[in-house]
């Protein structure tokens, strides 16, 4: 049997060069990354920042590393493992100083196979360059410099997503109460939903960020949240008392002060930085790490939307949001939680000048048995407004009333409504006014 060299990954010429070994997500044992993280590198990173662009121009002249992944051993002699380098050339030649950067250099984006594959997978327009796509993958916790992380793009994307989401919901369901509207907004465009979108795009996270990481991996760290201003809203002065004394936040003040989902603006965005700074932040899979991962993935999706807008314009971003976010499915009926539905229905009928609602037993079976079923209908005069079934007369009446209220609140003109931003397309038909409801039955 002939002797063969130990297996090494090689890349064909037609491919991009950036297929260097990357640890699978969650692999914390990878020595090169850990050395880079453990290094007291903050001073070096900030000092190296201004020289970044000029350094990249001369990078080809510097000594190249033998293997791209031994970031820690850059200064030491390359380890000779018996590989025939003429036969298996080094995968990606990186200057040794590259490990000093908090995120990959922009020009490396052109050589990343992962990034090119992501670009093609999302069917992004060719106008959107790979460098911008690489920047959307750098979270503010990985690279604090706003010129190199995605926080600016994420802010643009956040406003665009929420604008299109809000106008769609208002035209499609004009009678939604504001609390349910907030919940629906969050169900579509909130952190958890966008996290799922990023996962469905096949975006993987790097074990730890750094200059030598493949630019096609999402880069964020668990131990510091980073400063990323990606939300609208005001920080309330009485924030401390809201929790302590259980002060009520009315809907009007939520609209005025709080963020797009009616949530309180806090400094840490729901991430407990105090607990995170203790030793338990390294334990993987707690609530904090989950929140940080969700935020990083969501900001990546927002940044991609922002990048599509910046490079391709309004119509492209509208169809992108429609394809990836608005097209998701949500059961609106599951969002409602009624406290006193009977009173609410009575007030609704009084306001709309319907006759007072009356519950009538439509059918029943097994009254004396263990499993009775009653079907109750709600009538206003001779009009049947709704019905519900339950195992007791009271339950059935409540269900019928709640179904009636849901039928009112979930009124929809039609499935494919025109929204105001459709008017921005050239040659659009004249605007027909949409249905605007007079407001909620009982104001909060």
């Amino acid at each position: 049997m002939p002797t063969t060299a130990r297996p090494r990954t090689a890349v064909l010429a037609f491919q991009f060069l950036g297929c260097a070994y990357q640890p699978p997500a969650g692999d914390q044992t990878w020595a090169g990354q850990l050395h880079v993280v453990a290094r007291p590198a903050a001073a070096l990173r900030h000092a190296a920042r201004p020289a970044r662009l000029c350094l990249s121009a001369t990078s080809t002249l510097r000594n190249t590393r033998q293997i791209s992944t031994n970031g820690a051993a850059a200064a030491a002699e390359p380890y000779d493992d018996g590989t025939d380098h003429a036969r298996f050339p080094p995968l990606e030649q990186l200057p040794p100083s590259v490990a000093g950067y908090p995120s990959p250099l922009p020009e490396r984006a052109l050589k990343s196979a992962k990034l090119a594959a992501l670009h093609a997978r999302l069917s992004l327009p060719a106008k959107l360059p790979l460098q911008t796509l690489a920047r959307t993958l750098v979270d503010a916790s990985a690279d604090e410099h706003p010129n190199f992380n995605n926080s600016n793009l994420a802010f643009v994307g956040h406003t665009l997503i929420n604008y299109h989401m809000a106008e769609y919901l208002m035209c499609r369901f004009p009678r939604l109460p504001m609390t349910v509207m907030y919940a629906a907004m969050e169900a579509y465009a909130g952190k958890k939903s966008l996290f799922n979108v990023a996962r469905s795009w096949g975006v993987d996270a790097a074990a730890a960020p750094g200059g030598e990481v493949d630019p096609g991996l999402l880069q964020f760290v668990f131990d510091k949240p980073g400063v990323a201003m990606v939300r609208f809203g005001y920080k309330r002065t009485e924030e401390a008392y809201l929790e302590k004394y259980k002060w009520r936040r009315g809907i009007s003040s939520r609209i005025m002060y709080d963020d797009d989902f009616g949530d309180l603006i806090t400094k840490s965005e729901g991430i407990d930085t105090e607990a995170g700074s203790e030793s338990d932040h390294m334990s993987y899979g707690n609530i904090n790490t989950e929140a940080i991962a969700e935020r990083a993935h969501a900001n990546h999706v927002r940044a991609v939307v922002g990048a599509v807008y910046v490079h391709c314009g309004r119509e492209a971003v509208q169809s992108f949001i429609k394809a990836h976010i608005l097209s998701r499915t949500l059961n609106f009926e599951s969002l409602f939680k009624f406290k006193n539905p009977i009173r609410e229905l009575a007030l609704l009928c009084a306001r709309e000048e319907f006759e007072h609602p009356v519950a009538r037993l439509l059918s029943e079976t097994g009254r004396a048995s263990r499993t009775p079923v009653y079907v109750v209908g709600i009538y206003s005069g001779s009009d049947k407004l709704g019905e519900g079934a339950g195992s007791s007369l009271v339950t059935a009446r409540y269900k019928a009333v709640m179904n009636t209220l849901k039928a009112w609140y979930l009124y929809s003109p039609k499935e494919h409504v025109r929204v105001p931003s459709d008017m921005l397309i050239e040659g659009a038909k004249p605007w027909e006014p949409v249905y605007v409801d007079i407001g909620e039955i009982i104001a909060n």
Partner: protein
Amino acid sequence: MTVSALKAVSTGRNGVGAFILQCKKMDIHYCDWAGSSKGMNGFIKSILPKFAAANPQIEFTVSPRPTKHPLLVGHYINGGQKAVCVRNMEPLQILKKAELLRDASGEKLKKVSKPVHSINQSVRGVWSPYHGNGMAV
């Protein structure tokens, strides 16, 4: 406050809106000594460049696996993997296997007994014994 809201998360269905190819990476292993890799070496030389260019959504890596049979491994968005041993196969047979990996969803193989599986509510509604005129016995 009468109506309050419950938190929910919307669900995405691939293909409603945008379609994302589920195969995100394909590993191609060969041996340049062993005879079982003869077809694979021909595949890498002649067919793979065209196949890779036609499927830019997939990241291809080619690496030797000396003294082993040639292998195709697909990596999928749901975290799954699918490996096919392509020993002694002709290049065009290997292309078929690569297309199989490309088109797979990464889910475990399971028997599909119902033709339609949907999260949408039925348009006609569920039959109820409490409605209608009933049936004379």
